[in-house]
């Protein structure tokens, strides 16, 4: 009797697994989203509790500290306004020159703020879950960034949440270029891929860099804009060290990411 129960239970579970693993991508993604949707109330509740705790903490901050912070922010705001005025001038000039040369006009970035609500429970993926989705105009492959630099790209989009595959994940390889820190000229191009040898989770590899390139620690790495996903010029990180590969044919550099991916709270989605 027990043996029969064993067989039935095992058979049923195996059947479910086989069906699910052989489902086409679209239905599987839908089922995944539906199942993941069950957690949304919990994520919402946890977010509210965290918000409430923060508010309580904020209310305990002394008035003098708040006034000091306000003064600092006022100064910073003033400086940023002046910088913005200068940038707007440059922007207009740039647009006029592009028009004169017949180049395509640059469209200013349209950014959508998002809160990080969860992370991949498995240790072998680097994905996060954010609280915006289709309703806010998100689509797969949109770049995700912070003020410090690139975070990753949107992988799957649900109505109210999306998953972001971060830089350093095997599913987030892209073309990047190394910039000289002095004149911002392009020193070399390569592919950003996960680092297998490193114990530091904030290190990635820049691979397939031509052997003739001159790479030095401290040089900044930005997106090259060669692919369709990331626009040109988003900061990725800085070169830590360089090694030769394939008998000097290629160079490989370890890159320290500009964004601390372990402590993300708020990100921006670049709507294109």
């Amino acid at each position: 009797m027990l043996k029969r129960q064993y067989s039935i239970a095992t058979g049923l579970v195996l059947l479910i697994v086989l069906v699910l693993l052989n489902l086409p991508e679209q239905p599987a993604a839908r089922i995944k989203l539906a199942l993941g949707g069950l957690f949304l109330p919990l994520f919402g509740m946890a977010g509210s509790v965290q918000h409430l705790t923060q508010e309580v903490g904020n209310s305990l901050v002394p008035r003098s500290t708040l006034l000091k912070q306000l003064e600092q922010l006022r100064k910073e705001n003033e400086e940023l306004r002046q910088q913005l005025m200068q940038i707007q001038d440059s922007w207009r000039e740039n647009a006029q020159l592009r028009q004169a040369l017949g180049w395509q006009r640059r469209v200013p970035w349209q950014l959508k703020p998002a809160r990080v609500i969860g992370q991949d429970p498995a240790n072998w993926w680097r994905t996060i879950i954010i609280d915006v989705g289709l309703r806010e105009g998100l689509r797969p492959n949109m770049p995700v960034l912070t003020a410090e630099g690139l975070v990753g790209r949107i992988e799957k989009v649900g109505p109210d949440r999306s998953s972001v595959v971060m830089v350093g994940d095997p599913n987030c390889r892209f073309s990047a270029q190394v910039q000289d820190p002095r004149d911002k000229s392009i020193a070399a191009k390569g592919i950003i891929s996960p680092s297998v040898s490193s114990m530091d989770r904030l290190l990635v590899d820049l691979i397939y860099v031509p052997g003739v390139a001159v790479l030095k620690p401290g040089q900044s790495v930005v997106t090259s804009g060669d692919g369709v996903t990331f626009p040109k010029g988003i900061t990725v990180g800085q070169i830590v060290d360089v090694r030769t590969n394939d008998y000097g044919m290629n160079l490989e550099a370890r890159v320290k990411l500009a964004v601390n991916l372990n402590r993300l709270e708020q990100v921006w989605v670049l709507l294109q």
Partner: protein
Amino acid sequence: MNWLNTIAILLIAFLAVFLESYFRGLRNLVGAQIDLLPALMVYASLSAGISTVALLATLGGLWFDSLSANPLGITVLPLLVIGLIIHSGRDLILREQRYAQFMLGLAASATAPLFTVLALLGLGAEPLLGWWSLWQWFIMTLGGAAATPLCFRVFDRFQRAFTYQKLPETSFRPDREIKRDRGPHLDYH
């Protein structure tokens, strides 16, 4: 009670998957997230029926995969294998012993991620593996092992709170009660 226990196990599994995704403190601290599902599977396979084991493997695995980049259903198989092995040998295991619980949790927590990664590689996926993964595996194994006796304690308390507890049998038997009275009345006069 069986169904109540099954529901409690599934509810805890749901919460465990949520917490694994929501709390990033441990991952930031030690660089790895602990998986509580193998620990729960050890408890379920030693304390519940085969249907609960199958349900936990299926629902727990699917919930886990729904918040992960894993292909949907890949986590179900390792959990089921662990559950079936322990369930088939449950008569030989000293369930109440903390040491046994810890060792089973250790074995289950070590095996589950290994099986999952092997299944992923078999399916042609490319998980993030390197020297760092060995450390993560160590943390997952140790964390899961430590969580297993805790699981048993929580569920045993739950059972004590929600089930009728048998009164301990005493040696008192009414048919063997010694009747005492004032004894035979002797008249000395």
